[in-house]
């Protein structure tokens, strides 16, 4: 796999699947979504599911939902998650997610659980994360953010699997 293309930044599964299956599915999905042109609609049928995706700068956010689920609200779930990341990291960029992947997971867990929105209030989610951050012990030493290395980013992918 070309490291510039279709790298997974985060994945979350709400259905039990084997690692092999997960790899196969992500590979297929990356191809499908990459092939989409701008201005195409954000929904597509894929196997028995519907894929809802949206591109933010270099990242694609994808959710797989079931036939009965509401596409537009899923699109806004993605947006709300991006807003949460943005607020937390302060103008989020891909590198924040790479270097603080565990935080991205924690925020996701506060927002979505079991594939369903748990707390849709932005304030409440962030309050929960902040509280947790305050519980941290003082770090041994060192600066705020991790070292930032800038490289040319083409298409990096970021997957969330939302599945009921």
């Amino acid at each position: 796999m070309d490291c510039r293309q279709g790298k997974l930044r985060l994945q979350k599964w709400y259905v039990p699947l084997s690692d092999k299956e997960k790899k196969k599915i992500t590979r297929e999905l990356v191809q499908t979504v990459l092939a989409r042109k701008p201005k195409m609609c954000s929904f597509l049928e894929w196997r028995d599911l519907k894929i809802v995706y949206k591109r933010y700068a270099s990242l694609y956010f994808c959710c797989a939902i079931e036939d009965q689920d509401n596409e537009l609200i899923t699109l806004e779930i993605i947006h709300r998650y991006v807003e949460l990341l943005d607020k937390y990291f302060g103008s989020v960029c891909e590198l924040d997610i790479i270097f603080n992947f565990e935080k991205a997971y924690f925020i996701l867990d506060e927002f979505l659980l079991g594939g369903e929105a748990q707390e849709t209030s932005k304030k409440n989610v962030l309050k929960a994360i902040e509280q947790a951050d305050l519980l941290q012990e003082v770090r041994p030493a060192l600066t705020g953010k991790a070292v930032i290395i800038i490289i040319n980013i083409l298409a990096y992918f970021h997957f969330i699997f939302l599945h009921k």
Partner: protein
Amino acid sequence: MPAVSKGDGMRGLAVFISDIRNCKSKEAEVKRINKELANIRSKFKGDKALDGYSKKKYVCKLLFIFLLGHDIDFGHMEAVNLLSSNKYTEKQIGYLFISVLVNSNSELIRLINNAIKNDLASRNPTFMNLALHCIANVGSREMAEAFASDIPRILVAGDTMDSVKQSAALCLLRLNRTSPDLVPMGEWTARVVHLLNDQHLGVVTAATSLITTLAQKSPDDFKTSVSLAVARLSRIVTSASIDLQDYTYYFVAAPWLSVKLLRLLQCYPPPEDASLRSRLTECLETILNKAQEPPKSKKVQHSNAKNAVLFEAIALIIHHDSEPNLLVRACNQLGQFLQHRETNLRYLALESMCTLASSEFSHEAVKTHIETVISALKTERDVSVRQRAVDLLYAMCDRSNSKQIVAEMLSYLETADYSIREEIVLKVAILAEKYAVDYTWYVDTILNLIRIAGDYVSEEVWYRVIQIVINRDDVQGYAAKTVFEALQAPACHENLVKVGGYILGEFGNLIAGDPRSSPLVQFNLLHSKFHLCSVPTRALLLSAYIKFINLFPEVKGTIQDVLRSDSQLRNADVELQQRAVEYLRLSCIASTDILATVLEEMPPFPERESSILAKLKKKKGSSKLPDMDDSRKNVNGNTEHAEDAEVASKTPQFLLEELISTDRPHPSSSATMLPTRTMVPSHTFTDNLNVNSAPSSGASLLVDVFSDFSSAAPTESSDEHFPRFVCKNNGVIYENQLLQIGLKSEYRQNLGRMYVFYGNKTSTQFQSFSTSVSSNDVLCSQLNVQEKPVDPLIEAGAQVQQILNIECVSDFSDTPVLNIQFRYGGTLQNIAVKLPVMLNKFFQPTEMMSQDFFQRWKQLGAPQQEVQKIFKAKNQMDTDVTKAKVNSEALGQCEHLGPSVTDLSYSINMQSDFSFMILLLLWCFYESSQLTSLCSVAFTPPALRFRCSSVGRCGS
């Protein structure tokens, strides 16, 4: 947000991540990872005890490596150790590792569960949340077993923090999905439903998801949630946008909660309570109204959230399918979206309209948008939107617009994406068949399909067109003409050659009168395609050729030459070779009569569900597709009515005959069919055309065809048609390749007259034709049969008549046999036919009051005077049908005794010259939900016993 809170700065992790990102190649990356893995392994194994921070850092590195796509087979124990740390971040990383890398190691699960148990009991909300998140993320059975009973308690406890309640609700939802049997809600149900009233909207949101999932499984237990959900929804939709503070999303009040509440309501039918129902209708109207208001923000998030609620409301309206007003409004709203500049909205509008099209209230409203949908098909740039447009056209199609829709789909097909062509082909084929008033249009459409998208026309499609042409004689001539013309094209698709070969082989004679399509022209046209075709098509063409030999004796020589050529007789393909050899031999040996019989026109195919529809269903999954049969029922009752009318217009006798002779051989397995079948013994295409006759009998008939006729044939006897005559007096009693025997009979009191018609089916005369009726000794004294002389010569194709006079002397149980002898081409033929003269032919109905009936019934108490038979009824008993049936048995006038349809009694009474009596009682009842009929017959003469079995059969 203070910068301090960002990350907890595991410097080693950051360095490692940058190292990986600096790797120039995959190999370098793998090398760096392996180095790190070795380092971590040695640290974990080292003697020096690691502190919490280092453990956390290494576990986090392992997690990162795993997320890059590498396998991790150690570190689980260290992660579990982190769970019991007092430090929040260490615990958090431990849980994350466990959530991402679940391992079914039972020892580990026990340790993990232990840690979770401690955290759940800790009363520290942050720790409790971590534990609940972990359970929800893993959701394994072991965890369900361990915690399913604790979590509902946490959920409904009064002192639980809101955020913990939210996690508990969704955690329970996850466990319910994975192991529903382990999550009994019984005692908690009422309190869980009550969460819909919670002050905290986050709790309500989480609880609504949980209740929806539970209500889908056991709707009755959660019925009370409907009124609460409606009340909650009503408060949300009427609130000013700022009322809900942070739950307002881009000026839309609690869109997630609204969508979830509307989803929950879709688990139930419309509320029965009038006030509740009107409140819900108000909510839905408000949502529809709001969609019309000018947007409060230009942001796409605003319109998305608003429309998400709108679409869910429309889904509920469609689900209820009871408010025509709302349905039509919904349809109009969607109609506006069809031309919206947002692709997403166009897509969703097309999708929603598909379901609206199946409601009888909105079908017409949907149809008004046909032009927009057609233009979407032509102009949309996104294939998934075009696909939705095709689906919608398919769903909105009915008799009134079928021609337009099919034409548009056909023209779209020329440029359609390859990925959806096959589906469009199936849809066009189904619509063309379903709405064909005039079958010439159907034939044109299918041929166009093959022309435009031949490669995507599956076998089912061309099988189907042949089935239809064969079953409908009004279209056969047109079909022959059309395929002939289509085959003129210099390059035509192989599927067209198949259809053309089959149809010309059957019906080429219908257009042979025109010199432009004379037999030879037809043959040359077909044969010009032969060499370009695959083996199965060539095999089919060979069959068409042999059929030509039968249809057009004038081209026999030409075709024989073709069959005789080396490329056929010595073809490498065994199937082709076999056909060439057999057909050639057949055409040389068999007389024209035999050829005519062997190569007779195909009999009609049994009517069955279109194989195409089945294929489309399979392809799409039945849920995805508005089921044509179901949805049409509401919308275009006329289709079904037309079929009903057809049934109704059949004469009662015809119906009766159908009902009684259900065991009659099916056309596809009748004797005339077999020789044709034999000619194509192993090829699948005939099998797929639903010809199911047994090959073994086919083989034996092949022997008959080729056996020589010089020796005397053994006596053939046949009582195949006999059972039909139990309730019938006229019809064909016997038929073989040479002779057909028809009967016409009438009976009055104890006398009968039977007209026997002998038809010569061959082109040679029958000589020394003679007949005799034989009865066994006992029967001779009971039944007199006197035969009038018959002409000893029957000319080719002619029919002669013979009269038999019959007199019933006393009750009898045997049947006379008619023996026929004649010479055909020097061969002596012997045929014996059982004559359908039965006791019931001499029955006469007698009317009787029910009182009398039962009195007489009681008198006939002796065991040998009563027969009872219980059998499974095939149909609900219908008074009129049964009456007609029993009357045709000549058993008597019926008198309705029972009060209900399922408990009918008939009294039938018969008197003949010998004045004995038959009483018959027939009623229907249900036995373990299976319709059953009981037939009791009481009679005077014991000889009647044998008849009861056939009475029983009639009753069924």
